[in-house]
């Protein structure tokens, strides 16, 4: 009789998930399934709402990266209004987004993954959390807290409210930035910059400690997708979505957001509320692709800021031009945080960013609008249909964790095969199964468009379907 290991509540991610590990008679891993167990609903209950309420409503999808939904939604609304927003508004939105990247990446790295990386995958699970980190590596913990605070504070300074800012509106933003605010943010940048440099050094010094993880944490050939500008530079607020294959060759480009459905298909998964987007030209399930930090750095030719580009060069020297191991999401994430900090500095020095004209006004000029941005976790698409009066008649949201759904499933399988042996269940092995999911920094409350707190479960199922162990 085979067995199933079920991880109920994968820990230290945002949202709810369950992993089933099915064993064969010999106790070897036969298959795995990554389930998302929350119920969705945003698409349904926004029907009939005026479109311009969508930014505020969809920002409630997630308490971790509300700014991403705000921006994607506002961009979709801009498209419904068919306006080009004022330059200052564009710059301010990007600035806000950079701050969001810094805080979200800091959260993912320091709070959620550093316990594994710095304390060890096999360390005492009771202390393998941010508190344990504070005890053993107080400097790193302090840095993490300070970096996240910097991102949060910047958002607050710009938008007036930390979690769900009402500052971003269809057509732009609703208040210009003052010189004082600019100077305040500028004065905080050097500290953030030195923290991220320090963290990168630390991470690189540890890389050699994880040979097995580097090798099997979702190390597989897939496509990668991310936003770039016309020169192939990394973009997080606007640009075109470029798909590359695992060797780096361009596989497709979404140049007009409205055409995303030509490139991305969405398959419903039987055991999960999470849809599985796939690259249409390759079909399902071959069209598996990844998004997020790893994919973005694969897709981009360069970051476009000096320090981040230096780091990117070193990253590629170590790992190759296209990095296919999901363990390196962490590494890519840190480089991106550096990029975001440098980009903030660039933006803040542009005189146009202080311009007082920050909002375009218009009614409904297009019955459909699509907004695409890079959320910290990857490509985020908001697609709205409205009637002539501006009431929503249909909405489709494709979130980063959705894009990564297939890849996460594969990665879980790979890790389970390598580390889980049903006959001798070890916590460290199960933790690695959890950890590979965490490498993607999935946000499951976003994916299923519902609210949730970090939780995750694992289940071990025997060959006969009986549940042997649940966590």
């Amino acid at each position, binding site marked *: 009789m085979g067995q199933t290991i079920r991880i109920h509540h994968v820990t230290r991610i945002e949202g709810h998930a369950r992993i089933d590990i099915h064993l064969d008679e010999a106790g070897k891993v036969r298959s795995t399934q990554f389930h998302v167990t929350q119920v969705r609903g945003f698409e349904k209950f926004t029907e*009939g709402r*005026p479109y311009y*309420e969508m930014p*505020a409503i969809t920002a409630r999808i997630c308490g971790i990266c509300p700014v991403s939904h705000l921006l994607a939604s506002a961009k979709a609304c801009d498209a419904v209004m068919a306006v080009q927003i004022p330059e200052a508004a564009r710059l301010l939105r990007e600035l806000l987004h950079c701050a969001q990247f810094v805080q979200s990446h800091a959260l993912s790295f320091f709070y959620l993954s550093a316990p594994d990386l710095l304390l060890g995958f096999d360390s005492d699970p009771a202390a393998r959390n941010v508190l344990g980190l504070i005890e053993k590596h107080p400097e790193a913990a302090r840095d993490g807290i300070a970096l996240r605070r910097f991102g949060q504070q910047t958002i607050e300074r710009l938008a007036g409210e930390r979690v769900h800012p*009402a500052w971003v509106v269809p057509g732009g933003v609703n208040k210009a930035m003052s010189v004082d605010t600019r100077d305040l943010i500028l004065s905080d940048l050097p500290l953030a910059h030195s923290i991220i440099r320090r963290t990168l050094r630390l991470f690189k010094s540890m890389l050699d400690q994880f040979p097995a993880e580097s090798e099997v944490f979702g190390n597989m050939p897939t496509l990668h997708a991310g936003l770039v500008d016309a020169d192939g530079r990394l973009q997080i607020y606007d640009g075109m979505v470029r798909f590359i294959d695992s060797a780096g060759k361009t596989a497709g480009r979404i140049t007009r957001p409205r055409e995303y459905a030509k490139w991305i298909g969405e398959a419903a998964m039987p055991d999960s509320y999470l849809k599985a987007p796939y690259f249409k030209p390759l079909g399902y399930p071959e069209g598996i692709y990844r998004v997020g930090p790893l994919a973005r750095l694969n897709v981009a030719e360069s970051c476009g800021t000096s320090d981040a580009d230096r780091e990117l060069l070193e990253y590629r020297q170590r790992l190759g031009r296209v990095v296919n191991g999901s363990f390196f999401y962490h590494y890519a994430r840190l480089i991106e945080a550096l990029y975001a900090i440098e980009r903030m500095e660039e933006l803040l020095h542009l005189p146009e960013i202080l311009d007082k004209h920050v909002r375009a006004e218009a*009614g409904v000029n297009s019955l459909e609008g699509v907004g695409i941005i890079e959320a910290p976790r990857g490509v985020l698409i908001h697609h709205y249909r409205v*009637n002539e*009066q501006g*009431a929503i008649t249909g909405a489709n949201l494709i979130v980063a964790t959705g894009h990564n759904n297939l890849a996460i499933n594969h990665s879980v399988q790979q890790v389970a095969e390598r580390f889980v042996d049903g006959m001798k269940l070890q916590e460290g092995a199960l933790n690695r199964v959890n950890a590979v999911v965490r490498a993607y920094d999935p946000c499951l409350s976003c994916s299923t468009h519902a609210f949730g707190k970090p939780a995750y479960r694992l289940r071990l199922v025997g060959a006969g379907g009986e549940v042997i162990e649940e966590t």
Partner: protein
Amino acid sequence: MPDRVSIRIDGELIHAKLGQTILEAASATGKFIPSLCHLKGLKPVGACRLCLVEVAGVGRLLPSCTTPVQDGMAVTTRSERLDHYRRMILELIFAERNHICAVCVSNNHCELQALAKRLGVTHVRFPYSYPKAPVDATHRQFVLDQNRCILCTRCVRVCAEVEGAHVWDVGGRGVGSRLVCELNRNWAESRSCTSCGKCVQSCPTGALAAKGYAAEEMVKRAETISRLVEAKGARA
């Protein structure tokens, strides 16, 4: 009959004009009585019951917006009993429709919300009814979201009494009551709406709003309605 009367409000002796309501007399001396359906300048209807007060010698509570002052009256505007009822009324209003303040155009500028805060309504003890209420976005400039309507009828009255158009009415019965445009048509199909926006300005909540305003952006100026009525009265 003298045109001035003396009454006591919370023990304080006050001179009021005959014909004034208790609410008017109280606010003339700077005393606060919670109210929602009342808007200075419009005919009071006593719909929301938030302005209930105790009057010595009268067993039941009386709405101060519709009760005229009488010489020698002793009024209590705050008591445990009143607090209890007022809070309950607010809770029932919240439970009746779908008030999701965080995403509402009127968040932080809403009379209902402000009153709930002021009266210490921290939660609602009654089950929410989550009705499926429509949004009428057909008008070019304005939106009616029935999810946030508290049926105060300020819009009905301002439109009929001040603008003279009488676009709005209340249709249906009990909890099924809904604000209706003319004989229950879409706002865009109204033959009498002049698009003056008075109903929007007088609405205490986010139920009526100008189009295109994002969350928290709809700031109303109901007092302009009161001033307008006053100015009209002075001219007449």
